[in-house]
């Protein structure tokens, strides 16, 4: 074969290419040219941040009405809707406001959340929102176990414009989770 002949006696040009690593230089051509002419291609996070799309599904938050009251009525529906069991709601009667319901405790285990948004969809009073926050890397996973106060705080900083609170939320829905103010409190 011809190759056996060529191994026997390398031509000068082949020899030169070998000792100068010519092939590697060819392969590195693009790299080397960029080395001399540096221009970033990827987004330079954390120095640069992408504009998030409008429907971005970031960190979850609990919201308030404009008068500062929590929207959540403790209906447990987000808990039921969540496919990965992130949410735990402990609902109760609002102290001093008989028959009015709220979430006494509210927990989200964000280590499990898959940001599907089902909980937001399920909420009948729009008490849950998906913020545009995503920088939630932590050293200790337990910090991702959020309670109601933390979730409300996220809501407060992410949604400065709050929905107006109406006692009667819809003229046709005579009342919805409105306390009966004149009811004497239940005896303990």
């Amino acid at each position, binding site marked *: 074969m011809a190759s056996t002949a060529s191994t026997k006696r390398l031509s000068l040009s082949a020899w030169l290419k070998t000792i100068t690593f010519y092939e590697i230089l060819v392969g590195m051509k693009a790299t080397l040219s960029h080395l001399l002419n540096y221009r970033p291609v990827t987004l330079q996070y954390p120095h640069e941040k992408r504009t998030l799309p409008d429907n971005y599904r970031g960190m979850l938050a609990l919201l308030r009405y404009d008068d500062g009251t929590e929207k959540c009525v403790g209906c*447990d529906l987000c808990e039921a809707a969540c496919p990965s069991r992130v949410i735990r709601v402990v609902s109760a009667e609002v102290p001093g406001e008989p028959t009015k319901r709220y979430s006494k405790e509210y927990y989200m285990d964000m280590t499990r959340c898959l940001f599907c948004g089902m909980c937001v969809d399920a909420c009948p009073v729009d008490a849950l929102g998906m913020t545009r926050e995503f920088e939630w890397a932590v050293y200790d996973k337990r910090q991702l176990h959020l309670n109601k106060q933390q979730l409300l705080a996220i809501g407060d900083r992410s949604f400065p414009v709050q929905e107006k609170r109406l006692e009667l939320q819809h003229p046709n829905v005579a009342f919805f989770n409105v306390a009966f103010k004149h*009811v004497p409190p239940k005896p303990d």
Partner: protein
Amino acid sequence: MTTPTAQMVRIMIDGMTVNVPKGTLVIEAARRVGVMIPHFCYHPKLKPDANCRMCLVEIEKVPKLQTACSTPVDEGMNVRTATTVVNDAHKSVLEFILANHPLDCPVCDQGGKCDLQDFSHQYTATSRFTETKRVFQKEYFSPLIETQMNRCVQCLRCVRYCDEVMDVKALAPVGRGTMTEIKHFGFHPLDCEFCGGCVQICPVGAITSRLSMYEYRPWMLKRAETICGYCGDGCQMTVQTKGQELIEVNSAHGAGRNNGDLCARGFFGFHAASHPQRLTHPLIRRHGALVQVTWEEALEYVADRVNEIKAAHGGPSFGGLISGRCTNEELYLFQKFLRMAIGTNHIDSSARYGHVNGLQAMQLVQGTHRWTVTFEDILDADVLILVGTNITETNPITGLKVKEAVKKRQATLITIESLEPVVDTMSNIANLSHHHFRIPTSDTHHAIVGLVKAVLEQNLTQPDLAQRHPTYVNAMTSALQQISWQDLQAATGIEPDAFVRAAKVAAGARRVVIMAGQLLLRSEQGYSGCLTLLDLLLLTGKLDAPGCGFAPLAEENNDQGAIEMGTVTELLPGAQPITNDTERERIAKQWKGELPTDKGASLIEMLERARVGSLKAMFIVGENPVGSLPAVIHAEASLRNLDLLVCQELFLTETAALAHVVLPAASSLEKHGTFTNTEGHVQAVRPAIEPVGDSRPDWEIFSALSILLNSPMEYAESKEILKEIRSLIPGYSSLGPTPLPPKVDHSAVDRYLTDGYQRDLASRYHPISRASRPDGTVRLELAQSLFHSGKLSTRSKGLLQVEGSGRLRISPSDAARFALSDGDRVRLSSTSGEMTTEVKIMERVPQGTAWFPSHFGQAAVQLFECAIDPITHVPSFRTATVSMMKVA
């Protein structure tokens, strides 16, 4: 009930043919072929009301749509439930309902199990009405039951249930048209039996339980079908839990012996098990104080002490007392443990407080240890005789059977009760009674004697009885001749005529059931009263007639089981007398050992022996003699005298506080086992939660101790004990959840008629000497309250909200006499002691009588003397004459 002769008709439902008895409602016939016709106001327990119009169906040849819930089937009917016309009708009914419905499903406790929600989904109904919805003024309703009338669909199921089934009539519709709302009577919060029936039966979230308010969604809950641990009715209930948390109890329609009905104790009383004061660790007394130790330490300590005491004084220096609230398996193992591992016959259970009276009477006369009737026989009875039952408060569900028999099936009711027939906040069985004998509990026996006397004098006896057993009939006749009608009238205040009328009704009826309640069973005449009632059945020839029988009602949920497991000193497992040598041998052989030969001592005798020092050690399981026995028994001094007192308890009771070792036991919501209800149904108990803390089921404790004591009784689970029980007690294996009641044993009856009756004939039928009650005194009775059962229920937050403390119930006329009004304080004093308490005026209390609820009776028991029945050894301490004085 459909009689077996009911004519069958053949109808078509949606093209399917079904054969049903004539008179069945279309909605029920449809259910049989699996067609669910949507409905709100229909409920199988209630009379059809047809007010909601949700169940409209098309019936061929009938021009308009018909309500399936009120139309009875007829031969050849062709029903269509899913045509366009029908669907449109359903849709528009829903639209009308939704026109006013708030749709606050997210905050409604019914969400997820709501009929309206389901139908709305099914028909995708939305309402076209945009007018403003009605809003009712919300008022405070009650501590346990909450209403949200905006959600009411006005089906009136709650109102009808409360009236038809409960006979309480606490609820009523108020207002007209769409503005109809359900209210209770009066200006105070709802005050009723709190059976929870309205909560269960409301198809929407208009009436809900305040105890579990907002705590759950139906899909979060784990369910356990178990048996109520409060009274002998043995209701099946579904305990719903979220993790270790007890959330709610309910009972499905058709479930168990209670058919889905519950009383306040079952429905609202479940929190006792999760009370924060539950014992969670074994305790040992060291230097006078109880300190927490490990199980190993505690059990080894007990075993060492037992060995020492046994070596020094022998087996019979031990005694055991167990509560009739333990499971059959535990009761059985307890007596086996004491008889085999310890070697003593000193065993007793709380059945001694009264149930033994009824049992011994039954064994003597009819040779059975169970009822010969069932709840079905009560429903089918022609005549029901209630003696000292106060059935509404003591055995509420048996009470419902009586109410159904009387209200729906026209049974005649004869009551001998210390109850005034008045309408007040609770149902009152005296109101339904046709022949009511209002008699103080202490004189109940006279009234029974009056009935027997009337039977004999009016020649209402079974004709051939006098021929077969002339001596019996003659002896009875002559014994009763000594008692004159004048004396009887003086003692009972009842005209002779009334006795005669009632006796005629009873003797003339085909199916007669006599029920004896706690007031009789736990009284001094408990045993003799039961015998006399059995005499009444015998004389009228009803003892062995089908559908007739004697039914003593158990107060504790497993009193009957305690008897059958041989957990009283005079009985072996299978309720065989301890003197029966063949049984002894057979059982000893099965147990591979020797049964102790000593004659056992009953509860009071044990305490007496402990006091004089011949009894050295006691095991007390779930019982509290210090708290429940009157001071004259000196239970505390006796127990303090013991060298070793081991208590297995849920709470640190007065008795447990004296113990050397306290072992934490699991409640009936935390273990497997079986309970035998008052009619003899053995029913499965299943755990709803894990044992609280380190507590263990009682049987595991006995088992562990037996191993340490070198006579191992090892079982992997409670089922194995049940297996052993079944192999040991002949006939027990066939007793599933629906056993046939035993038959009257004719040889026993013959023995009784020949000479058995003679033993206490004279003491039962003797001329009445009447002691008059001095002025300024009342007859004090320790009574059962509907809202409590035993002492456990006083740890249940729901029940405490309805009845939080013991208040003396007095009649309005006594209140006037002593110038008292609700909440005033009085001092009661008798020869034995005194106490101060608040009064509550209750119209049903007869004049001259005052009731104190036994569950809060620690202070009250001091007032009572204690009489011990010479034959059954039952201590009775529930009536006393006390003087009453108002204090500031």
